[in-house]
Every structure is written in C-alpha cells, then in structure tokens.
C-alpha cells in the first residue's frame, strides 16, 4: 500500500526492524492507518463512516460465524435451529439480534458514507476508482444481505426470495430458466437455502477483499476533504494516527451506543413480524416487503405499471431498479464540475437536498403497500431520481457558477476558528 507521498517508515525497535526486513507488514500498517498516512486536517464527522462500515463488517463476520455454528441450512430445520439459537445457546439471542440489527447498521453507515461521497464530490477525479470499488462493495452487500435474510426461513424470507429471484424471471425468453437455475428448483426450497447459505458465508470475505482494494485506491491520491481543495503542503495535513484514530475511536463509541440501544431494547423494531412465522409456500403474506434498506429500490421496481409497447411493465421495473444503482457507476463522468464540494456549488446544493428528500420518500413508499396513492407517488419520486442523476446533474455541472474556493485547507480551517493574532499567519507558512 505504497503511495507517492507516504511518509517513510523507520522502525526503531529491533523486533520491528527484524520483522519489517522479512515482511514489511509494519510498514504497511504505518502507511495505511498509522502515523505515515497524512490526512487533511479539516475532515468533519462524515469522514467517520468509512471506518464505522469496517467495524460493522467485523461485527457481522464475528456474530455470523458464531451463528453458523448453530445453524442448519435445511428447509426442514432452518427456522427451528434459529429459534434454538435464540433460546438454548449461551448468548445466542445476543448473536442473532446483533447479526440482524448489525446488517441494518451496516447499511445505515454505508448510506451515510455514500451521502458523504455524493455531497462532497468524493467520486471525482482522481478518486474515481475509490468510488467504483465502493459501489462494488455496495452491490456485494446487497446480495449478501438479501441471501442472509432468506436463511431464517420465515415467511418474508421465503416470499422475498421468490420475489427477488422472480426479477430474473422477467427477462424475456431466458428469464424463467435463469430463475429455476438460481433457485435450484421451481420455487425456493432446500437447494436455494443451501446455496444461499454457502454464498452468504463466502461474500463477506469477498467484501473484505474489495475493501482492501478500496482503501488501496484511496491511498494513491489520499483522502478528500470537506472543502474539496487538494492538499497543498504538510501544513494542510495531520498524521492519521493519533489524530484520526482518536476521532474514529470516539465515532465508534457513538456508533456502538446507537447500535446497542436498538439491539438490546428494540431488537425487532426494524424487522418484520411475518418472519417469525415459518415459511409456508401455500400462504402468501398480505404485503411482501424486503428489509428497509432495499425500500427505495423496491419502490422504483414497483413504480412501473404501464407496458412500453412490447416491453412488459414488470421487465421495465426490473431494468429501472438495476439502472438506479448502476447509474452511480457513471457518476464521475456525469458530474463534470471541477468543484468537488457541494458547499461551493449553490445550484447543485439545492438539487442535492431534493434528491435526499426524494430517496427518503422512495424509501417510505417502498415499505408501503402497493396501492394507490403510494404507487403514483413512487412514480413521481422515481422520475425525479432518474432525472436528477442522468439529466439535471450533467446540466448543472455545465452551467453552474461555483462560489469562490478557499485557497487551501489551512486557510479554510483558520477562517473557521478565526484568526486571533499575528501568530496565526505564521502557520500556513510553517
């Protein structure tokens, strides 16, 4: 993980000297998350969420591996082995609730992380690869979360699996064979459950691998910052350790407080009661809804109700749902404004907050029943979503007049804390 402007590592302790000669792991850690990684000094709390997402992944892997020790991936026993874990395994209830709520918190912090990237233009050159790899992680997370939700084999597990694999069934001609191939049968069953378990165990480690690439790609240009102005000299940065390790430690504490408050006092708040009913292929739940973190995309899926000539509405919905995520891969080339931070982009700023509201509304509608007036509302909200990224954003970045940018990171920091005396002027020149 070497990058052009990393600080040189010079171990003092003879043990470290010995290790570093044989395997430069201490060097790697020093340059990746240690004192050898200079980071802009003006990062705000939104820059905490990358580390928090990593923490959430660790929580998921630890609780998940323990859960797997007590789980039976067989449609006859899956539901009852999960219940047994809750009742008869020491702290089994804790592992189960931590894993279920941990998935939600993983998405919460990743959505805030993406929000940060969108507002502060972190996806722009030279950090396109960081953004693209982040989206790969996001897609892998969605696949992992979906398959994980199937494992308890409750009613929503079963019907969710049926609906989501049914999306592939909407593809003309080859759709149904693909759906059958994915499920290993004509409906979700033991074969589906087994492969979902296998993949659900595998994918988090793939995510961990892509996270390494994500951080590696980040370390080539270094972290972005709220002004969007690149680092101009050493006075603009602080070493990652101890400055940001300390800040991330505090952030992790706040994250854990929120996580534990939900986990211990309202562990089923984000879940659906129907998933405490064992899967029953003969009884369809009144409203099939996925977990909350899929709701915005689910609303887009269901918003298409009118066939487009020979293209059925269902296929349009599927295409639009995939497009709504895949379009993010083109974002670095859709938003051509050289100014990164939304703070200095007055027009972008307004439309950005409309987008945020729009996505929240889509989320609410995705959880609502597929009835009027919700469907009409999700059609309008979905239309804005596509228009924002594909039409409005490219136009804004072309015609917008940005506000003047600060000359440097240090200048912005000094403006924030106020210049008090003559000494302050000396700092940038340090």
């Amino acid at each position: 993980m070497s990058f052009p402007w990393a600080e040189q590592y010079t171990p003092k302790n003879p043990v470290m000297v010995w290790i570093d000669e044989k395997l430069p792991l201490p060097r790697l850690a020093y340059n990746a998350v240690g004192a050898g990684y200079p980071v802009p000094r003006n990062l705000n709390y939104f820059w905490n969420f990358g580390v928090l997402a990593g923490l959430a992944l660790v929580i998921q892997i630890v609780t998940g591996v323990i859960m797997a020790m007590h789980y039976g991936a067989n449609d006859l026993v899956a539901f009852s082995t999960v219940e047994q874990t809750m009742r008869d395994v020491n702290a089994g209830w804790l592992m189960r609730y931590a894993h279920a709520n941990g998935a939600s918190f993983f998405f919460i912090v990743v959505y805030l992380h993406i929000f940060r990237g969108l507002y502060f233009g972190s996806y722009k050159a030279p950090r396109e690869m960081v953004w693209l790899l982040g989206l790969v992680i996001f897609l892998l997370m969605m696949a992992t979360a979906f398959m994980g939700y199937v494992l308890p084999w409750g009613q929503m597990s079963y019907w969710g699996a049926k609906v989501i694999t049914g999306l592939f069934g909407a593809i003309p001609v080859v759709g149904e064979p693909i759906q059958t191939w994915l499920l290993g049968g004509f409906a979700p069953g033991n074969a589906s459950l087994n492969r979902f378990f296998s993949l659900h165990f595998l994918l988090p480690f793939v995510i961990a691998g892509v996270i390494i690439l994500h951080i590696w790609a980040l370390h080539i240009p270094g972290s972005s910052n709220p002004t969007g102005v690149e680092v101009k000299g050493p006075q603009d940065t602080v070493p990652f350790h101890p400055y940001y390790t300390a800040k991330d430690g505090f952030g992790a504490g706040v994250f854990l407080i929120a996580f534990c408050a939900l986990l211990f006092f309202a562990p089923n708040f984000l879940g659906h009661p129907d998933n405490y009913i064992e899967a029953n292929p003969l009884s369809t739940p009144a409203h099939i809804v996925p977990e909350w973190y899929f709701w915005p995309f689910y609303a887009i899926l269901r918003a298409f109700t009118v066939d487009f000539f020979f293209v059925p509405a269902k296929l349009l919905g599927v295409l639009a749902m995939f497009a709504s995520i895949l379009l993010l891969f083109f974002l670095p080339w859709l938003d051509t404004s050289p100014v990164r931070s939304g703070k200095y982009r007055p027009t972008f700023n307004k439309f950005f907050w409309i987008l945020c509201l729009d996505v929240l509304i889509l989320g609410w509608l995705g959880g609502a029943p597929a009835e009027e007036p919700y469907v009409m509302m999700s059609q309008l909200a979905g239309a804005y979503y596509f228009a924002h990224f594909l039409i409005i954003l490219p136009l804004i970045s072309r015609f917008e007049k940005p506000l003047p940018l600060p000359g440097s990171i240090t200048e912005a920091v000094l403006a924030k804390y106020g210049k008090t005396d003559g000494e302050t002027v000396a700092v940038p020149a340090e």
Partner: protein
Amino acid sequence: MVRIGAFLVGLFFAGWLFISFLVGAVAYVSEPPQPTVEHEFHKPVKHVSFSFDGPLGKYDQAQLQRGFQVFKEVCSACHSLKFVAFRDLQALGYNEAEVKAIAKQWAIKTPSVDPATGEASSRDPVPSDHFPKPFANNVAAAAANNNAIPPDLSLMTKARHHGSAYVYSLLTGFQAQPAELLKEFPDAKTPEGLHYNPYFPNLNLAMAPPLTADGQVTYGPGQPKPTVDQMAQDVSAFLTWTAEPKLENRRRAGLATLIFLLIATGLAYMSYQNIWADKKKAA
C-alpha cells in the same frame, strides 16, 4: 458520449414513469378505489399495559403462572407450543419437582417408540421435552378444526404487530357483526363456521371465542379474579414470555453495556479533544 447516453436513458425512465403516473392518476380520478370492509372495520389493537412494558420492564412471575394455567386449560387443547420445553417453566418460578409433575401430568403425551416392539407409542413428557403437539399432523389439525390449522403459539406475540396487545385484543374482541357493516357491505356477512372479530386482519376467523365466561379457569388463592379480561391479559403475558424468554437477560445486559459504552465514549471524546487541542485553535 456518456452524457448523451445517460440523457436518453434518464429521459426514457423518468418520462415513462411520468406517463405511468398520468395513467394511474386518470384511473384514480375516474374510478376512485372503493373502500373495503377490512379498511373500514378493522380496528387497531386495544391499549393494555403489562409489567414488561417500557425499556426496563420485567415479567410478573405470578401473572406468567396464571397465563400458563390459561394456556394449559384452554389454548393447549388445539394450539401447539413447539419451541418451548417443560424445563423452561422454571423461569416462571416453578421448582424442578413441580416442573417434573407438570410434564408428567400433561394431558397430551409425547410420541415415542415402544422399546419392546418398535411400534409407535407415547409416553409421559419429561422436563427436557418440548410441549407435545395436540395433533399428530396438519391434516389431523385441519380435520378437527373446521379446516383451519391452529397456529403454533410459541412466537405468536412476535409474529404480529404489537403482538402482546394483539393477542389480548383478539381474545377479548369477539362480538356480533355491527349492523352498519352489513348495511354498507351486504356481501360481507361472516360465513358459517367463522367468527367476527374486528382485531383480526380479515375480520372473520375460524377460532371460536376461547374465553367465554368469568371464572372459566380457577386461579389460586391471592390471585386476581379470573375475569375474561384478566385471563386474556395473563395469557398474553405468558405468550410474550414464550416468544421472548430472554427479555429480562437482554435488558439487564443492555443496561450494563450502555453504561459501559457511555463512559468509554466519554473518555474517547476527551482523548480526541486532547489530541486535537493544538489543531483546533487558531494556533
């Protein structure tokens, strides 16, 4: 090139959604959706308070024991409780000998194999057994219950929104069909063999009112009067325990964890401020 493609894709999806909206809006205005009988007459759960309400509430052992008694004498004739074992009853305050006796005297026997002949037989349950099911299988359950299978109750209060209050509302909510309902929806008369209950999602359920008279179950000395309302509350509390037996452990552990985290986070904040002290001031 990317932007032209994006513009066209965006125009297509946004445009088609807008057209779909117009189509939907025209239909909505010309043919407004008709109110359904469920929409008009389904009631939200009744308000009822339990000792385990709130973030630090605890189960009331005496109430759980009364609820267990209602389950044993009324519900267990038709409903299974398959995720709960007799040994779990110790959490209700019964000692080992009492649990043994409860298991031994349970009306339904545990399926077993005759050790001499290998043929199917049954035996008295022991504390390590889960509650035996009242019907051998779903076909038998449906045959004995007017074609409806009585659901397992172990997780019932977690399998419904506001489960504890829902069970209580359902048990006390049986009533004659309101006259206004039949006037507005003449086709919605409760079918033969079903029972009207506004707390049930589709308003008519197969289960007959199980708690019909005060004193249906005889409570021990020093306990409240077994009115229908009291019995319904008690059995709802019992079923809350069967669904979430670790509730008290969870809340205790949660309180300790949060206190620890608050202190640790406070310290982390102080060290963060300390480390940044020279960078945050205007030098």
